[in-house]
């Protein structure tokens, strides 16, 4: 988490010349006390080394994008005087948050970008413009998905129906190049109710599953795998009511929308934590959002509690179970995999774990395709004007996937999965599905 939340409060009262009678100059006195959520300490910490700029996947392909250093500390300083608007280039930032881990000086870059983008959208964007409406629709994917899931077959047809997509591109700027993800005929939550909820009861080992929108509406098999694997380890799985994690909303500067969902999520997750559960996510953008962006951007009762109790699914098992021991000697018939670590897994320091875990299983090879960004960044690659950039960023990943042995992809992030499939034609799986095959399915020799 960033420095911005815990600014150094120099208490000048005790040592001040007035208090001590000593009038020697103390440089610290020129600074007033910091206030909460003051981004100044972060801005002051930037010593313009530009390392963030060399890590920005957007700046790498777009010479006109001024890069994270400008979007963050420099723009923040410009904004101290009210005669400067936020530069519209902030909308080109894809919220991959790579600049955060590049910074040697703990500048809260992504937090600065999120606040700048929020302010840009609120104060400078025309609310009637097709761009605003498009961004609003894209970032509120949960609402569209909820509607679509009521009539999944019709939606699947309509969403990829050529003339309809042509209209969407022309009027709203949603690229017609991409195939919309299929909506599942039965959502994860519908499946959960149908099976009668948790099959394991265990007051000592409980997890609350934050499934997010995508594994609910599009890939319920990921949610099912999560439940089966955790039940195999004796966990009681809870599935609290929940909204969107907010990630697409932060990336589009829709902070009010994000806050509304965050309030629902925090309230329900805090209740689950109160019942002894830790929060588990299977999408790394969801876990990053609950852990990092929530407390950076909002002040909601219980938000720190949620942040401190949230984990990514594999991470949680590695910490609390002898996952390696369980997997050693397990054998599974699974295709070889080309693994891409999502930026938001990288940001949580989780980029190496999927390979490390899968390596313990006999019968499946997983190969890391390197540290490039997939380029889609959630809603980013869905925008007609950003589509080409998005594919250019993804180029390196596509090439490395083609070079890898496996012809099936693996990643934790739903939109990275879309991009991987779009660029290579590969089917994409989630690490939890591999674990399920190794630990739960009947056809494994470990059973």
């Amino acid at each position, binding site marked *: 988490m960033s420095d911005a939340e815990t600014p150094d409060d120099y208490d000048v009262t005790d040592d001040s010349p007035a208090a001590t009678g000593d009038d020697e100059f103390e440089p610290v006195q020129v600074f007033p006390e910091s206030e909460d959520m003051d981004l100044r300490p972060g801005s002051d910490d930037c010593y313009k080394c530009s390392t963030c700029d060399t890590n920005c996947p957007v700046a790498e392909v777009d010479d006109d994008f001024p890069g994270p250093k400008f979007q963050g500390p420099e723009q923040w300083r410009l904004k101290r005087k009210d005669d400067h608007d936020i530069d519209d280039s902030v909308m080109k930032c894809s919220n991959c948050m790579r600049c955060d881990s590049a910074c040697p000086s703990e500048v809260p870059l992504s937090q600065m970008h999120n606040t700048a983008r929020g302010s840009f959208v609120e104060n400078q964007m025309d609310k009637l413009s097709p761009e605003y409406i498009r961004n609003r629709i894209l970032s509120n994917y949960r609402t569209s998905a909820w509607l679509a899931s009521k009539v999944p077959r019709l939606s699947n047809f309509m969403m990829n129906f050529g003339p309809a997509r042509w209209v969407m591109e022309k009027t709203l700027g949603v690229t017609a190049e991409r195939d919309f993800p299929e909506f599942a005929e039965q959502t994860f939550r519908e499946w959960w109710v149908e099976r009668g909820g948790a099959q394991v009861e265990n007051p000592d080992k409980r997890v609350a599953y934050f499934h997010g929108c995508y594994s609910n509406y599009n890939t319920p098999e990921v949610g099912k795998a999560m439940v089966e694997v955790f039940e195999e380890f004796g966990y009681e799985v809870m599935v609290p009511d929940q909204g969107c994690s907010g990630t697409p909303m932060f990336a589009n500067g829709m902070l009010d929308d994000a806050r509304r969902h965050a309030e629902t999520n925090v309230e329900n997750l805090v209740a689950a934590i109160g019942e002894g559960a830790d929060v588990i996510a299977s999408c790394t953008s969801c876990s990053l959002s609950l852990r990092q962006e929530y407390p950076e951007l909002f002040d909601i009762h219980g938000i720190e509690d949620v942040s401190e109790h949230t984990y990514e699914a594999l991470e949680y098992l*590695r910490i609390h179970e002898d996952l390696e021991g369980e997997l050693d000697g397990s054998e599974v018939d699974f295709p070889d995999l080309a693994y891409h670590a999502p930026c938001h897994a990288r940001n*949580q320091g989780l980029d190496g774990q999927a390979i490390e875990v899968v390596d313990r299983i006999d019968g499946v090879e997983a190969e890391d395709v390197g540290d490039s960004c997939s380029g889609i960044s959630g809603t980013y690659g869905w925008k007609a004007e950003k589509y080409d950039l998005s594919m250019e960023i993804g180029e390196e990943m596509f090439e490395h996937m083609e070079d890898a042995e496996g012809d099936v992809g693996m990643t934790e992030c739903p939109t990275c999965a879309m991009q991987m499939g779009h660029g290579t034609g590969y089917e994409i799986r989630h690490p939890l599905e591999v674990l399920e095959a190794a630990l739960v399915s009947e056809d494994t020799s470990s059973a």
Partner: protein
Amino acid sequence: MAIEDDVLVIGGGVAAVASALAARETGARVRLIAHKQSTLRQASGLIDVLGYHPEGADDESRTAPISDPFGALDAVPEGHPYERVGEEAVRGGLDLFDDAVGDAYAGGHTDRNALVPTHGGTVKPTARYPAGAAAGLASDERDAFLVGFDAVTGFDADVAADHLRAAGVPFDVRGATLRFPGDLRDDAKLTRYAHLLDQNDEIEVDGQSRPAREALAERVKAHLGGHERVGFPAILGDAEPAGVRADLADSLGADVFEVPMGPPSLPGMRLSDMLFEALEDAGVHVETGNPVVDVEADGDRVDRVIAEHTATRVPYRAEQYVLATGGLVGKGIRSDRERVYEPIFDLPIPQPEDRYDWFEEGAFDDHPFARFGVPVDRETRPLDADDEPAYENLRAAGAVVGGYDFAAEKSGSGVSLATGYAAGTGAGERA
């Protein structure tokens, strides 16, 4: 439960990599956990062992560069990391380094320091240097031509040439500032130049489209005169630096070299990438992105350390630990207005009580803060207030270790490699 290994290395720079590789060579199962990207990405990429005599030597010898760093090791004061680990560890660390980088680096053929011109026009005594800097050595007597670009800040070719002449280099050196061909924005990222040259993309020059390397060579040629070697700021490719240099040399009919630059530094990034590849090849588990923030001890043994995965606290267990988190810049050592401290284990760091005694008046004086760090025993174990090892299974390596001033001595990478080698070997053998 916790995530378990034989040896856990905390840090991501040269010292951490050397520790992990050395521990791995003993057969131990090793994990390296680093908070952020390594500060290596801002370093020059030069591997210095000892360029100038440390504090304690008489003033006159301190201003003359050392030609044989190994011969000078005996003269370091007590408590200096080289005195702690000895020459064998220095050589062991350099061997590890040479194996990891292969022919991307030069200098391993001799014990003597090479003299590499820097972007400021000084000459730096160093033990290993990137192959790209090889044709630029100051001991080479061929005349040199330095090329700067008006949009690439941090390297003024004319100033650098003036400084080198003033430093008395045994050759003629001239500089010129040109415009990089093509139409890049004035504050383009350094990596943009590098990628352009890597990919040899077509660029527009005077209405004509031609490959980037060729266009650049054409522009330089007009100024070349009879110079036999040409130096550029270190932007000549990221993935393909050797190919970029070879093509330029071919077109120019002169040797081509890179002058190491300040941050963001391509030689530093290339080195960082090579070292992390070496870790992967060696089978070290690498995790970056999360800081280690705390320790749980069992008597005088470290039982586990706690990493902060954003806001959640995650335990990591190992038999042996190596602390290689860096110094004040890398944030392995921190300071506030009251004290200088080591944030994970809270190891003692000797320091003057009054913070106004942490530094001297002049910028280039002997500052006490430059030597801040944890004191270690001869096995690189950090010492507690009673000069006893703070934990029997904790070692320290690199800039977190005190007792030396790497900026004045030009010994940063050498100390990292030597202490990393000693700490990693010791940890691996006892794991």
